[in-house]
């Protein structure tokens, strides 16, 4: 195939952004939709073409294009250049495929919103940057996509900008991401200082040429990259922006904050595996961050009531799994989970959107219930997603999560067994809170009031007026009462549900009689620059794999059972438990007070410092004051000198006499300065 087609993959969505961004306001909605969909469908087709090409060519290969320099100074140059290898191909498929489905869904979900054109323009802009991110062949171009998706995320979170909470969440997301970017930038500066280039190929080749190089500045670079990845992929300590990002419309949460953008950090770590393989310490940090994030956010997810927030914390938790996989050197397992997670989490968010749509904007699970019969398509799709994420055997999430846990258990990383234990605990919690969501939403007695739902529609017509509305109001004004979503929304749901169910079969492990094709497919990428010392045990006995699987399935069943007991058999029980364990419940409910602690320890002191010390004392006091004092001194001296010029002849005579006297004294008494 013609490699120049690669340029079109990101540029087409960009063209869509430009068209809708400039003309969209004047175009009818149908035209806006067609533009947005067409310009995301075409890249997806090109990616299909790429697959055919890669399948036809037997040998592992990659495709590259390069254009004129972007930055060129003596001694340093960066070009616009794209590369496709097997890893990129997987990412491209996820981004364009899931992205296109979500675009279709959005056409239905956003149909009655103001700023329809704006929404699709931003969505296409996001696709552009995300595709640049995965296609780039250098750190710097990756950073373009990296910051760009942050921008698109900022614009989309703040889509309902009339709402203060949305505007704040957008700003928070951008600034927290910038903290991550700060680390990324420093990593790039160190790379330039040590390698003189930012091209992946050149850096990794240089690294491969120095097999003895370990730790040292490489650890510094890796840790700084981890800061960047933690910002983008919402890991401890920078995960705080993601739950707030749920202020955006639900399709945005599905596309950006679940399926694609937040996985950029995992992609980056996998892409830089050559660096990380040389720094066991950085890898250990990645693993610990991943495990801690997975556990912590899963516990918070246990007690949330907002359906989207449960999913948000679950996303953070699943991203933690992927980090954990990368941290033990099992990059393909991480990418595998990234892919299946994109399927089932996009599905879960879109189904949740469909539920919210059905309930005219209601997001609180406490007032849902009994929706199983009312919105059957959504119910069945959601069921597929819930079973996939909870680890129902032979669903996609089962295979990928199992692979990660297996790799962690058998790795040589320090504390591998402890990390595995955390992973299994998280799996149990995940199963529990996902079934909690499922039962509370679809089972039991309806807890909503249909009449108030119908009446509520009018208030959501105008988002500027509905600024007080607490919840995402992406729902239709045409509907009355609970209703199933239109086909334009349910068809993408069905496709994603199918993928969530069968998507795992590309990576059936050997212990199950499969060939782990996914891992073999990615192998060329992770061995391209010489295999690093692999942390994963190559040949654990099959019985270990089966035992671990049995444990994971037990966790799944236990979670299901516990949720069933608490929310279906005995609905009042959960409240009692919360009462009984009041302190624990409060800690979880308040999300460990992390936001408050950051506020108190970082944000407030910084503002006080800026306002009081820097702005007040130093700037107004010292710097302006010195200028003022100098000015005052000049004025004062001028005032004194003015006295001399009094216009009084006698005083002039006096000054002359005094001056003469001084001169005479100097001459007479030999004060001889060195003239």
């Amino acid at each position: 195939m013609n490699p120049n087609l690669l340029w079109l993959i990101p540029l087409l969505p960009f063209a869509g952004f430009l068209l809708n961004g400039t003309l969209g306001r004047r175009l009818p909605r149908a035209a806006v939709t067609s533009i947005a969909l067409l310009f995301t469908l075409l890249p997806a087709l090109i990616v299909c073409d790429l697959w055919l090409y890669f399948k036809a060519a037997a040998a592992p290969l990659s495709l590259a294009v390069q254009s004129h320099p972007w930055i060129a100074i003596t001694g340093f140059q960066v070009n616009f250049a794209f590369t496709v290898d097997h890893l990129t191909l997987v990412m491209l498929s996820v981004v364009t495929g899931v992205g296109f489905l979500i675009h279709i869904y959005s056409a239905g979900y956003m149909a009655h919103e103001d700023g329809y054109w704006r929404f699709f323009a931003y969505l296409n802009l996001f696709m552009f940057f995300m595709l640049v991110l995965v296609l780039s062949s250098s750190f710097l171009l990756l950073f373009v996509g990296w910051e760009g998706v942050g921008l698109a995320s900022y614009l989309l979170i703040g889509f309902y900008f009339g709402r203060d909470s949305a505007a704040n969440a957008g700003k928070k997301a951008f600034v927290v991401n910038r903290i991550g970017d700060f680390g990324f930038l420093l990593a790039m500066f160190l790379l330039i200082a040590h390698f003189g280039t930012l091209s992946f190929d050149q850096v990794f080749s240089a690294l491969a040429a120095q097999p003895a190089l370990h730790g040292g500045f490489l650890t510094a670079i890796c840790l700084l990259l981890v800061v960047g990845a933690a910002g983008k992929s919402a890991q401890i300590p920078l995960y705080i922006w993601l739950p707030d990002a749920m202020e955006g419309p639900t399709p945005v949460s599905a596309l950006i904050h679940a399926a694609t953008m937040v996985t950029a950090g995992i992609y980056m770590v996998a892409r830089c595996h050559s660096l990380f393989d040389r720094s066991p310490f950085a890898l250990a940090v990645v693993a610990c961050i991943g495990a801690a994030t997975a556990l912590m956010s899963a516990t918070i997810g246990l007690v949330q009531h907002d359906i989207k927030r449960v999913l948000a914390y679950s996303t953070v938790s699943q991203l933690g799994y992927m980090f954990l996989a990368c941290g033990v050197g099992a990059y393909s397992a991480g990418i595998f989970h990234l892919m299946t997670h994109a399927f089932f989490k996009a599905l879960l968010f879109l189904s949740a959107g469909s539920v919210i749509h059905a309930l005219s904007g209601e997001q609180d699970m406490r007032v849902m219930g009994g929706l199983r019969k009312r919105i059957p398509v959504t119910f069945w799709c959601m069921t597929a997603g819930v079973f996939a994420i909870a680890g129902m055997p032979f669903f996609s999430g089962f295979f990928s999560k199992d692979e990660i846990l297996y790799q962690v258990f058998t790795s040589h990383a320090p504390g591998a067994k402890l990390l595995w234990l955390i992973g299994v605990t998280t799996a149990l919690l995940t199963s529990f809170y996902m079934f909690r969501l499922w039962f509370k939403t679809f089972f039991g007695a309806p807890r909503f009031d249909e009449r108030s739902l119908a009446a509520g529609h009018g208030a959501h017509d105008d988002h500027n007026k509905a600024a007080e509305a607490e919840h995402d109001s992406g729902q239709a004004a045409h509907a009355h009462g609970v209703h199933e979503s239109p086909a334009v929304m349910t068809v993408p749901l069905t496709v994603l549900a199918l993928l969530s169910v069968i998507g795992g079969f590309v990576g059936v492990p050997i212990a199950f009689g499969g060939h782990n094709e996914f891992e073999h497919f990615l192998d060329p990428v992770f061995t391209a620059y010489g295999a690093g010392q692999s942390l994963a045990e190559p040949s654990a006995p099959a019985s270990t794999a089966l035992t671990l699987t049995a444990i994971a399935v037990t966790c799944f069943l236990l979670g299901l059972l516990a949720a069933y007991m608490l929310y279906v058999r005995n609905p009042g029980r959960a409240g009692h438990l919360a009462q009984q364990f009041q302190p624990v419940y409060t800690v979880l409910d308040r999300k460990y007070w992390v936001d408050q602690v950051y506020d108190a320890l970082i944000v407030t002191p910084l503002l006080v410092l800026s306002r009081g010390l820097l702005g007040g004392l130093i700037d107004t006091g010292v710097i302006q004051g010195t200028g003022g004092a100098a000015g005052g001194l000049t004025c004062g001296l001028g005032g004194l000198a003015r006295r001399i010029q009094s216009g009084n002849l006698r005083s002039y005579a006096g000054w002359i006499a005094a001056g003469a006297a001084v001169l005479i004294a100097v001459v007479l008494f030999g004060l001889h300065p060195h003239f």
Partner: protein
Amino acid sequence: MNLDHAILTIILCTPLLGAGVLALLPERDGAKTHHIAALAVTLLTFLFTLHLPSHFSAATNAGFQFDQNLPWIPSPSIRYHVGVDGLSMWLVVLTGLLAPLGVLASWHSIRARAKTFFVLFLLQQVAMIGIFIALDLFLYYGFWELSLVPMALLIATFGRTENRRRAAIKFFLYAFIPSAILLVAIVWLYARTGTFDMPTLQALAAAHHISPNNHALWLCSLAFLVAFAVKVPIFPLHGWLSDAIQEAPTAAVMVLAGKLGLYSILRFSFGIFPEQSRHIAPLLIALGAIGIVYGALIALVQNDLKKLAAFSTLSHVSFIALGIFTFTVAGVDGGVFQLLNESLIGAALFILLGLLYERYGTYDMRDYGGLAARHPWMITFYVITSLAAVGLPMMNGFVGEFLILSGAMQSFARHHIAWAVLGTSGVIFSAAYMLTLIQRVFYGKTGYRPDEVQGWDLTGREHLELWPLAALFLVMGLASPYWTRAIDTFGTAVADRPQSFEPVHLKHMETETYPSPRASAQHGAFVDPTLAAAAQGQPAPTTDKGAKY
């Protein structure tokens, strides 16, 4: 006819003649005569400046181009010598571009005394172009002083509040007092070398023939540096900046900060005092990094839009100062490129703030809110400008900041990593204050002022002001080599090549702080013998001369 040798004089004289013509035009109430005439003059000037990039040669050893060197006064030997190189060429074009935009930005805001305003504005442009092209120190100093007067008058006459006179005096004193010392330093240089000619001085400096007296050289270099640093302004010499920016009309603010001082540092401090500049570099790198964070943090807590913009300007020019004093190719190239970016971004930001003020009559953010729905185009330009200012990749600000900071990481200066890290943290704070601005003005609930006043989205004239800037942000961010090709010729000449810089020549000054055994081994090869001998404790010549008169 070959324009090449006359083009700079033409560029210089067009606004000068224009100012003369404008002064003679009669002033009538309500008529836009002066606006139109000023626009015509500035557009013509801009057109002429475009000759430079199209005929510029980016060969490494091209030296000064388009030069014209005519005798003016035989004794003391003062010549009319003008020319540009990779450093100044784009700055001249930039000055040409900003002037018509400034006239457009003043279209409505300047109603009374339009004649005074535009005559002063054009004179200011003459002074700036003169500073960028003068290659004779005396000529340069003339333009340097000339640049003060119209600006001070513009602030004092057309300032926004009652505070304008104070701000004008402050601006004038801050700039004038160091300039007086600069004059002393220039005269001393002339006394030592007998020439005002910049290329000659640069050659002398490279060969260490300016003066054997190191203390005097140091004092002289400091006089240069301080005069320029105040003008930049470099932290902590920025006391005048926020007052002047708050008062000055939009068109004047657009050309107020950054360019002149930083250009002068690059041209004169680096050209005539290469060693001294390198030795003081660690201090300036530190001040630059501090200034970045300091300006950004104060901008973060401002309620006044213009004050916010003033401190963000401080933060941005500190980036450039940090870059150029790293003496790396990346740092210097990035610094000069960022100088262009900062001017364009600052211009766009001040134009945009002016738009709000023209509509609602306040710069207080607390009065605003929820304007996005009312001004969709305005918010678009605000967002684009903010993104360029915070250095989003694919915008011009990113290329400059990235090169500067990567240069800082490679710099020879001690503790450079710490300062590079501190400077890089500026990218977090800049995002914070720019997004805060956008949020407080455009998002959320409608503030009380927009309820009282009827707003309108951008007019055709305003589109005309902003589109060229927005397009440049993107083009300069995507095709930076077009600009850096010329800048690079200057950057490579200034920057240290690997191993070429050792603090050899000043060893006797700083033995304790810069011990370098390798340096002393090379001592004989590098140092002019007379210099070494003479540096052993002669009295400083400046003191001599001062006492004699």
